[in-house]
């Protein structure tokens, strides 16, 4: 892979799709880290925490400041979604949904930065590859969805007890006949595993495709024609505006499905 985009759209895009992995034991090995995804996602996560925390610390029940009102609007919106689906104690699920929504939204919003901006900045510091959108990295989307899966399993055990959930895994949905235990279990396993896969693949697919379209449009800038350049500018703006919708919807869907999965874990079959 070329370290510099030297003409050619394919190379330009391929360059942009490369993660920054300075620590790597072997090519393709597990023990390497996408520093770019980690940095951006952690930065945004910490920013989210500090932002909401600063408002939460000064939260008054009197007349709220504009900042507090904004934070409250987001929180009430999330709380309303949780309330619609889940009829239990919302003290864990509420914050979880809030974290998912805001964090995913912020990470998705990195897509709206000019596609070359962060890579150009890091390039000044000698880092050749930098991908700005953590949600376009399967590692991050799967990290979130697997955590959600673990929470689903945890809450299944918590709500139904160890015996209850095990019993349900083997006896639902077909019946309690011993011959049906294996089919039941396999079906439940598929159902369980399909949750994180669909969650993470949906988010990843949307963000990856969105990033790719931005790159393709950005490719028009260096196509060598003023007409194509103009088309690129307009296309970039149009796709950017449309993408605002996509990033919001994807953050919303991820949050709602998280709520649904965890509230399903509380339901008895």
């Amino acid at each position, binding site marked *: 892979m070329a370290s510099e985009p030297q003409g050619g759209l394919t190379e330009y895009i391929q360059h942009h799709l490369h993660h920054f*992995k300075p620590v790597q034991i072997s090519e*393709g*090995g*597990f*023990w*390497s*880290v*996408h520093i770019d*995804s*980690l940095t951006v*996602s*952690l930065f945004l*996560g910490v920013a*989210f*925490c500090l932002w*909401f*925390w600063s*408002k*939460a*610390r000064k*939260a*008054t*029940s*009197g007349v*709220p400041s504009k900042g*507090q009102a904004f*934070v*409250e609007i987001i*929180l*009430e919106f999330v*709380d309303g979604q949780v309330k619609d689906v889940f009829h239990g104690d919302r*003290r*864990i699920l*509420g*914050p*979880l949904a*809030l*974290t998912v929504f805001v*964090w995913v939204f912020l990470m998705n919003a990195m897509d709206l930065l000019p596609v070359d901006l962060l890579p150009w900045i890091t390039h000044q510091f000698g880092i050749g590859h930098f991908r700005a959108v*953590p949600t376009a*990295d*399967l*590692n*991050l989307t*799967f*990290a*979130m969805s*697997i*955590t959600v899966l673990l929470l689903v399993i945890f809450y299944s055990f918590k709500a139904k007890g160890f015996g209850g959930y095990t019993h349900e895994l083997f006896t639902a949905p077909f019946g309690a006949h011993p011959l049906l235990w294996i089919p039941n279990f396999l079906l439940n396993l598929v159902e369980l595993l399909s949750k994180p896969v669909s969650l993470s693949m949906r988010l990843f697919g949307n963000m990856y495709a969105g990033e790719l379209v931005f790159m393709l449009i950005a490719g028009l800038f260096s196509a060598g024609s003023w007409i194509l350049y103009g088309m690129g500018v307009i296309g970039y703006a149009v796709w950017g505006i449309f993408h605002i919708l996509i990033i919001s919807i994807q953050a919303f869907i991820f949050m709602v499905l998280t709520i649904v999965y965890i509230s399903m874990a509380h339901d008895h079959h």
Partner: protein
Amino acid sequence: MEFNATLVGEMIAFAILIWFCVHFIWPHISKAIEERQLKIAEGLNAAERAHAELKDADSKVAAEIKQARQQAAEIIDRAQQQANQILDKARADAVAEINRLKAAAQDDIASMAQRAREELRERVGALAVQGASKIVQREIDASAHKAMLDQLAAEI
């Protein structure tokens, strides 16, 4: 696309973010929201109560005004009655005073007439004596005939 340790790192990061949100963000903000909801509910209740109280007070004021008007009318009535009574009494007093004064005047007149009559009788007596002495041409002893002359004067 490949999976690597980023996955684990992100899972830990995600868990920490959730933990932070659960402990430091959600409770404070939702508490503030709930408290404000309570305050607003209380405020609305208070407003409703105040509204009802105002209505109550209005009707109370109307009743009081009605009562006051009634009382005022009664007072005026009574005052008029009293005034009439006073007037009547004054008139009766005046009439009595007039009667008294009239009676006193009549008494005076009567006693004055009596005195005048007696005076006249004496003068007539004296004149009669004078006349008689002139007619008789001789002195009549006034003291000797006094009894007779007095009788004469009384007869006149």
